[in-house]
C-alpha cells in the first residue's frame, strides 16, 4: 500500500500490471505495455476462460463493448472522447486505460474556463529565459507535450469546459502529431512518439457550453458512457469503491448487505422521482450518479467510524444521504416528501422492512430537522 492519499492507478495496481505484463503474450501495438486483450482483462477483470493463474479484479463496471471500443480507439490514430453524465466513471476509465497502456495516468490537463493554449502546448520558465534565453531547457512542456515526447497517453479532463480556441489547439496535435515551437531556432518541432494518444472526457450535461468544432470531433472517436441503472452492476461498483475506502482508512467496519440495498433502493427511488419531476425545482440538484451514491456511503462509514458506534446503521446512512443531497432550499421539501411518501409506507410493509427502513426514516427525519 502506498503512502499517498490517492495513488494513481498505475501505482495502486503496480503489482497486477507488472504481473499481467509478464504473462502477456499478445501483440502490443506501438510502445504499449500490455496487449489490448490484457488491458481489457485489467479493466474488466478476468474470467475463468482467460486461464490466468491469478484473479484480476474488475475495476470498471459497465458494458464490455464500451471498454473494447475505447481500447481499440487508442490503438487507432484517433483520440478517444469519453462522454457521459457526471459520475458515470469516465475519468476512472481514462485513468485505468492510461495506466494500462503506458503506466502513466498523470499526464492530465484539466479543462476549465481558464485553461489556455499554454496548458496544452508549452510555456516558459521566465527567469531561465531571462538568464539563458529561449531554449529547450527553459521550456516547460505541458502534460500533453510530455505525453507526445514519451509516447504515452495524455489526458484532457472536461474538454468541453475549455474555450473553443484552446480546444482547437488540440486539432493539430491530434492530426499532425507534432507541436512546433517557433521560439526555438533549432529543434523547433516536438514530434509525437508512437504510442501517443489523447483520452478526453466531456460532460454531456455541459453540452452547449463550448461545443466542439466539427474538425475536432472528427479527430475523436466518441464513446458514450451511460448512467448505470442496472442494479447488479451498481451494487458491484458501490461495493468495490467502499472496500477500497475501508482499506485506505484501515477501517474494519461491516457494511451489511441490507443497508447496501437500502442505499441502492433509495437512490433508485429518487432517480425515478427526478425523472418524473416537471421542473427543476421539483428535482434534486444532484445527478444521483453512482459516484454520489458512493459519496453518501463513504460519508456514513466515516461518520460511524469516527463518531458513531463503530457499526454502520441505517440512520447514519439516512442522515448522510440527506446532508449530501440537500444542497439548495428546494431540495429539502423534496427529500421530506420522499421520506414521508415513499419511505414511511415502506416501514409499514413487513415484507420489505426488517427494521432498517424504520431506522432510515428516523435518521432522515432527524437530519432534516437539524437542517431546518
Amino acid at each position, binding site marked *: 500500500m502506498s503512502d499517498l492519499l490517492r495513488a494513481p492507478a498505475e501505482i495502486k495496481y503496480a503489482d497486477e500490471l507488472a504481473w499481467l505484463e509478464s504473462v502477456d503474450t499478445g501483440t502490443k501495438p506501438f510502445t504499449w505495455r500490455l496487449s489490448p*486483450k490484457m488491458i481489457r482483462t485489467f479493466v474488466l477483470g478476468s474470467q475463468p476462460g482467460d486461464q490466468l493463474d491469478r484473479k484480476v479484479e474488475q475495476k470498471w463496471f459497465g458494458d464490455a*463493448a464500451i471498454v473494447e*471500443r475505447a481500447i*481499440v480507439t487508442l490503438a*487507432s490514430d484517433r483520440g478517444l472522447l469519453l462522454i457521459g453524465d457526471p459520475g458515470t466513471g469516465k475519468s476512472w476509465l481514462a485513468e485505468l486505460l492510461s495506466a494500462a497502456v503506458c503506466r502513466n495516468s498523470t499526464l492530465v490537463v484539466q479543462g476549465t474556463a481558464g485553461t489556455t493554449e499554454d496548458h496544452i502546448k508549452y510555456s516558459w520558465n521566465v527567469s531561465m529565459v531571462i538568464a539563458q534565453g529561449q531554449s529547450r531547457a527553459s521550456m516547460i512542456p505541458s502534460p500533453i507535450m510530455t505525453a507526445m515526447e514519451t509516447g504515452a497517453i495524455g489526458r484532457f479532463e472536461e474538454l468541453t469546459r475549455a474555450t473553443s480556441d484552446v480546444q482547437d489547439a488540440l486539432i493539430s496535435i491530434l492530426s499532425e502529431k507534432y507541436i512546433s515551437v517557433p521560439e526555438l531556432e533549432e529543434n523547433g518541432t516536438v514530434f509525437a512518439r508512437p504510442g501517443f494518444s489523447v483520452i478526453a472526457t466531456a460532460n454531456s450535461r455541459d453540452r452547449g457550453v463550448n461545443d466542439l468544432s*466539427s474538425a475536432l470531433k472528427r479527430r475523436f*472517436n*466518441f*464513446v*458514450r458512457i451511460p448512467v448505470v441503472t442496472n442494479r447488479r452492476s451498481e451494487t458491484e461498483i458501490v461495493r468495490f469503491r467502499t472496500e477500497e475506502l475501508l482499506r485506505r482508512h484501515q477501517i474494519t467496519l461491516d457494511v451489511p448487505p441490507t443497508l447496501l440495498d437500502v442505499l441502492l433502493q433509495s437512490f433508485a427511488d429518487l432517480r425515478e422521482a427526478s425523472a418524473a419531476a416537471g421542473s427543476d425545482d421539483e428535482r434534486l440538484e444532484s445527478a444521483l450518479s453512482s459516484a454520489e451514491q458512493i459519496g453518501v456511503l463513504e460519508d456514513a462509514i466515516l461518520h460511524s467510524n469516527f463518531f458513531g458506534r463503530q457499526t454502520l446503521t441505517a440512520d447514519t446512512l439516512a442522515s448522510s444521504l440527506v446532508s449530501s443531497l440537500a444542497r439548495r432550499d428546494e431540495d429539502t421539501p423534496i427529500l421530506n416528501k420522499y421520506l414521508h411518501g415513499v419511505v414511511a409506507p415502506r416501514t409499514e410493509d413487513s415484507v420489505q422492512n426488517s427494521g432498517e427502513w424504520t431506522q432510515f426514516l428516523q435518521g432522515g427525519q432527524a437530519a432534516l430537522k437539524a437542517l431546518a
Partner: protein
Amino acid sequence: MSPTTAPVGVFDALRGQLQDAATAFADGPDALQGLLLGLVDDVDRAVREPLEIFPVCHHSPASAVAMARRLREKQPKVVYLELCEDMAPLLSELRNCTLPVAVQAFATELDGFPADWGPLSVVAPITEASAEYQAIAYAQSTPGVELVLVDRSSDHVFQWEPRRATSPDQQEPDEEAALHGDAVGVEIGDLRPRFAELEEHLLRNGRVRHWSEWWHQYVELPLGDADHDTYRQVMFLVGSLFRRLAPGESARVRVDEDRERYMWTRMREHLAATGTDPGEAVYVCGAFHAASRVEEFGVHGATGFEIAPRTGTTWQYGLIPSSHTAIEAQFGLAPGSVSIAATQWTKNLKRTRAVPFRLERPAGGKKPAARTPARTARSAPSALPGPATAADPAGAAAPADRLSGFLRRPGVVDPVDEAELLGWSVGIVHAARRAGYLASTADAIAVFETSVLLAGMRDRAKPTPYDFQDAAVTCIEKDSVPGRRDVRRLVEIMMGGDRIGRVGYDALPPLARDVHDRLAPLDLNLQQRGVKRALLDIASRPELERCSDLLWMLRYLMPAGTARPIMGERVLGQRPIQESWDLALGTHQRALIELGYEGVSVEQVLEQRLRRKAYHPLATTATVLEAVEDATLYLRSARLADELGAHALKVLATERTVESAPDVLRRVRRLLAYYRTSQPVLPAWIESFVTSGYAHYCTLLPRAFVDEDATVRQVAAMLGFLFTMESLALSLGCDRTQLELAVAQSHPEEPSRVALLWAAQVQLGRLSRAELRGRCDELLGNPLVLPSYPAYLSGLVHALEPVPGLVDVVVEAVSQALGRLPDPVLLPWLPTLITALRADNADLAPLLVREAGRIFPGRLAELDQWVPPWREPAPTAPPTSRARTDAPAGVALLAAHPAACDAAARLLGCDATWRTAPAAPAGARLLATHPEAALALEALLTKR
C-alpha cells in the same frame, strides 16, 4: 425399436470423456455428471427415434439449409410441423405473399375467455430463411406430400397461457415494430437459454452482447456447412442443454410439456389413421422439444393424453404482413439479427449450392412446376435410397458420433472476407453522409481498422457484422444524431435492412379484395407500401363517386393515415365534386386484413360498428344520433338510420341528465335540415324525436336551471332545442303551455342562468326588451352586484343560441360592460369571454361580430358623431299618447273600423248593435259614461 443394439455404443466414447470431465471438474460423480450424461442420453434417444425428428431453431439459416438438404435427400411423404394446427388451411396462401408474413388467428367474439382479453390474436411469422418455410414449401410444391401441423391450436395458446394475455409487455413499439399489433407470437423452434446466468455466461465468454449474436457466432456459422448427422446431433445437444439447465418455472414447463404431449398424440393419431410408415415422415420441431422427457415422447410413447376441447370462441384466420423488425421486437432478438440471418441465408445458399424450396406465385405456375421436379429429378438418384435410410433409423445413428468431433473442433472462422468488410466500411460512410453525418473517407478507413482491431480483441479472426456495427458507431457517431437514424440503425439497414412482407391479393380476405377491386378505377397500385395520392374528379367521371364513398368509409373504419382526405369533405346533403386523397392501404395492410375478419364487405362492417356504437350500454342520445348521421352520411341507408333513430328516441327517454343536450341540438338541427331538403316527408322517427324531445326537455328544464352539474351551455342548448323546434313540435301536437309552465317553474340563482332565464322570458313575451335592458342597467348601477355582472353577461352570450334575436341587447350589454365595469372586474373576465366565444360557441361569435359591425360605426371619422343606439333619446311622443289627447279622432277611428270593437264586444259577451251617433257630443257622452270599453281597447291597441 429394432435397431437398439446398433447404436448403444455410438456415444460411448463421448460418455466416457464427459464422465472424466465431470470427475475432474466436480471432484466426483454428482449432479454435473448426471447433467453431462443426461445430455448425451437425450441426443441418443432423439437420434434413435423411428420417426425422424428434425430439430430447428427459429430464423436460423443453418437450420433452413439443413432442412432443404434433408428434404431433398429423404423425400418424406409426411411432414409434421410444430405450428398451431388450426392455421393449416392458410399455408397454401403463402405462395401469394412476399415474405415475411405472419399467419394470424384472430378472435373478437370470445366465449370461454374473459371479455376483457379480447381481441385475441396469435401470430406466427414466417421468413424465407427458416426451416419451417422450407418444410412448408417442400410439402406444398411436391405432389403426394402431406403437411400436418401438430401443435396446439390458437385457442389452446390462450387456454394454457392466460397470464400472457392479461399482462402484455408494456414496451412502446415504434411504428416499424408494431406490425404485429398486440398479438401473442408463436414461433417454431424457440431456442434460448432460460437460465439467465447461463445466457450471461455464454455472452460474456463469447464476447458478444446479444443472444442472437452468440447464436450466429457459435452455432449458426459452424453448422452452416455441417452434414445432416452433425447438424442434428448438435441441435439435439443444444436443445437438451437448455432444457436441462432451465430453472423450474412450473407454469412454463407445464405448457411446454403439454405441447409435446399434444404434438406426439396428434402425430400418433395421424400415423394410425393414415397408416403412414414413421420412416417416411419427418417431424420438424424446435430443438428444445426434441429433448423432451415426457412419457408421450416417441412413436411408441405413452398414450392417454387428453386434448382439452377448444372453447366456443370463433377464430378467424388470415395472413398479415410482417417485418424483420417486428419479428425482432416480438421475440426479443437483437435488432438487425433477422436481417443478418437473411443475408447469411443467401450467402449459405451460394456457398453450399443447396437448392432451397420456394413457393412460386401461381401466375407463373408452369415454371415452378417444371423446375421443382427437374431439380428433384437431378437429386433423385441420391434421393432414391432415401426411403432406405428412413426405414432404418439406425442408419442415421450408426455413422455418427459426430458430436465428439464437433465439440473438439475450434470455432469456425467467420467468413466475412476483406473485400466484403471494405465494401461495408465504404457503404456505411456513404449511408452516414446521406443521413446527415459529417463522415468522410477517413472514417471509412477508421471503421475498417477499428473493426479488425475489435475482432482481434474479441478473439475472432475476422470481424462479424456485429463487430463492424460497433466499429462504425465508435468512429462515426459523435455527440448527437443529426438525422432520423443513428449509425447503429444505418448499419442494420445496410446489412439487409428491414424487409417488410406483403400479403398477395389472392391471400387477402374477401373484404380486402373487395376494397382493392372497388378502388381499381383509381389506377393506383394500392398494394404497394407508401402513400399514394388519388385525385377523384367526380364531376367528369361519375363512376368515381363509388370510390369516394368507399374511401370515406375506410377513413371511418381504419387507423388514421390509411385514407386521408386532402381536399373534399362529406357533409349531409352534399354531393362530392372533386376530392383528393392520400392513401396508404399497403402500409396498413394488417388493419385492412383484420377488418376483413369482421365481415365480408366494408358496408357490413360499418353497419355492425354503427350498431354496436348505438346499442352500447353507455351510449348517449348524442352518440346514437351521431351513428344515425354516419349511417346517412356513409352508408346512405335510410333503413339503418330509421332503426338507429328509433333507438335514439328510447335512449332519450331514459336520459336523466342534459349533458349531451348541445350535441343533440346540433345533430338534430343538421338532420332536420337534411331531411327537409332531401325528402318529401320527414321520417317518422325524427318527428317523434322532436315531440318527445320537446316534452323531455320541458320536463327537465326547471331542474337543469338549478342543477349544479349542468353547465350554462347545456341549459342554453336545451332552450335552443325548445325554441327552435317549437314550430315543428307544436305542429305535431305539442302544447306550448308545457314550455311556459317549465319556464315559469324555473328559479335559478346563479347569475348566468338567471340571465339565461330572462332571455327565455323575453322570447316567450313575458319580459320586454326594455325591461331586460333596464335590469342590466340596474346591475351595472348597483356596486354590490357589479362583480357578478360578467356572469350575467356570460348567460346572455349563451342565450344567443336559443334566442338569437337578442343579439343587439347582448352587444349593448357587452359594450356597457367594457365601458362601465371597473378594471379589476373586467380584466379577469375578458379571457373567459374570449375562450367561451371561441371554444363552445364558435357559431355565436360571428353573430355577435356581425351585429356589432352593424351598430358601431365603420369608419374612424364617424366615431366622433356616433351615439350608441341605446344612448339615443327614446322616441319623443309615443303614438298612444296622441290618441289619448285626441278623443274625437278616436271616435272617428271607431266608426271607420268597427270590426275591432265588434270583436271586443263579442269577447265581452255584449250583444248590442251599432247605432249611429247623432252628434259628436252624444258619443262623447257615451264614452264619458262607459269608458271601460274604450280603455280596454286602448290597452289592446297599444300593447306591443
